[in-house]
């Protein structure tokens, strides 16, 4: 039973364009959502988070949007750069508990 789903295993985007990574969830008790970036042979690196009471959070080139009614969130990267090529994980925290539930990840490839 996958509570956090990233349905696109990979995504290819041209350098300078917008990258949009999507994530769906099923558990209404999630109170925070986070995005992590992972390079090979390294641990996940925290990028940005959003509370379930908000619908948008922005940090530099990264913006996360949350649509609670659709149980959907997305990460926008503008403009995309070669160093953004990595696997991106969507994660969620359930209120009252602290461990994160992760999706399977999306491999983002930025093409020159």
């Amino acid at each position, binding site marked *: 039973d996958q509570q*956090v789903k990233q349905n696109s295993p990979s995504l290819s985007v041209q350098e300078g364009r917008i990258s949009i990574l999507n994530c769906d969830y099923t558990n209404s008790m999630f109170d*925070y959502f*986070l995005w*992590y970036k992972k390079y090979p*042979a*390294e*641990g*996940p*690196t*925290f990028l940005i*988070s959003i509370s379930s009471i908000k619908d948008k959070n922005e940090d530099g080139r990264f913006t996360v949007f949350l649509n609670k009614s659709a149980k959907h969130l997305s990460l926008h990267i503008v403009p995309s750069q070669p160093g953004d090529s990595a696997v991106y*994980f969507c*994660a969620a*925290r359930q209120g009252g*508990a*602290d*461990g*994160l*539930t*992760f*999706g*399977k*990840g999306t491999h983002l490839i930025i093409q020159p």
Partner: protein
Amino acid sequence: EAGVAQSPRYKIIEKRQSVAFWCNPISGHATLYWYQQILGQGPKLLIQFQNNGVVDDSQLPKDRFSAERLKGVDSTLKIQPAKLEDSAVYLCASRTTPFGLIAQYFGPGTRLTVL
């Protein structure tokens, strides 16, 4: 500020052998987590410590996995005996207090191969 440290980085063992992983969290981080990441999957929480007490170990296979954090700082995760399906990357993460920022910070992981 130093990040989360883990050792060893790689380990290869035969099935039925035992293995231990070590983690040193970011200084001052009271909460420590161990995750298991199987190839092609996202990390899965195994156990969470708050200082030296266990907060959540509901997904830890307790018949073969054990973990401790004796002095509220370093932690070890042990598997005994290992099975083929334990082949994975074991990630340690830490966070500040329960009421601090929610982001967890991960170490580089230990890649375990069970033959």
